[in-house]
């Protein structure tokens, strides 16, 4: 770990995240988020968390961008600004307070790699020292994920599959749905024609009454 590199990475991450929130073009926001993930994976690899860095580079910088772009093609490319300045001010205050709290809390954290840190003194010592004898696996991360804590991995995989199935249920288009939508669109066009034929005043009234 190199301090100057870490600081540069943090600055780039903050900039890309803030810009991704500010830009109006959602395609640009997706590109910025992919860049953010790539820089984050460099940060993870910098602290020797190779497994996390690999997943972040593959999923965050690769597949997520593709899925976001597919979603943009389905919906719209423009983001609409919310016109609530008061709420925005409150949000900024909340974010600033949360950020201050996090910085305050981080002053109490143990140093990175500190052998006396609580995370290093508990059950993890057993995992690290026994992994090779118990499971013949030199990579402790793999033996942790798939053996010692495999129930967590089971839950994680289940969550991923459930999320994919839920997305499929929400987004899936059946042929019957298309037919219903077509009929609705036709009916709407006919309604418009009918109201146009009756007269302008009636039409505006009807338009206001509709939910």
């Amino acid at each position: 770990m190199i301090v100057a590199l870490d600081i540069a990475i943090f600055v780039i991450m903050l900039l890309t995240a803030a810009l991704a929130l500010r830009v109006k073009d959602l395609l640009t926001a997706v590109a910025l988020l992919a860049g953010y993930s790539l820089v984050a994976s460099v940060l993870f690899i910098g602290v020797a968390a190779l497994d996390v860095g690999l997943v972040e580079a593959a999923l965050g910088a690769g597949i997520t961008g593709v899925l976001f772009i597919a979603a943009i093609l389905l919906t719209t490319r423009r983001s609409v600004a919310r016109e609530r300045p008061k709420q925005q001010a409150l949000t900024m205050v909340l974010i600033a307070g949360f950020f201050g709290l996090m910085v305050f809390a981080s002053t109490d954290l143990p140093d990175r790699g500190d052998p006396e840190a609580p995370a290093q003194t508990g059950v993890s010592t057993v995992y690290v020292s026994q992994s090779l004898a118990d499971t013949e696996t030199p990579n402790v991360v793999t033996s942790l994920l798939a053996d010692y804590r495999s129930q967590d991995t089971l839950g994680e995989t289940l969550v991923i599959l459930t999320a994919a199935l839920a997305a499929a249920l929400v987004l899936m288009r059946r042929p019957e749905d298309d037919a219903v939508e077509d009929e609705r669109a036709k009916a709407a066009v006919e309604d418009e024609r009918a109201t146009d034929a009756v007269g302008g005043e009636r039409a505006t009234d009807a338009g206001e009454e509709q939910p």
Partner: protein
Amino acid sequence: MIGAYPSVVVRVVSALLSPFILLFGLYIIAHGHYGPGGGFAGGVFVAAAVILPRMTLDEELAYRLAPPWLGPAAGGIGMLLFLAVATVPLALGGDFLDYAMVEIAGVAASRIRYLGILVVEIAVGIAVFGSVVLIFDVLTGKSDA
């Protein structure tokens, strides 16, 4: 998003690269014991190898290589494989997911845990691959699940 990309350079390069991406994904899944990787990252790479032809190659060809039912099927098979591995020790009188309870003559308990990890990584890889491909197919309107 899907269908043949109108540039021959991109088509040829993605057709050339996607088998190697697939190979790299399988390597990542199998090599999790000794290096960075495992089921999650490997499954994502394998899914990328399926999604890249869908975005650039001719539609008929891409869906013949990996039909749309592959996503949900792989997700379910991976999850079932994981659950089967988890329940085998339970059936033999041990704890849930305690692979060392499975006794095979001539194989050390640590070796069985090693193999259990391998099967779990493969199951996670299949499930993650299926989930990602399913989400992509649903977003592009090509899912027939």
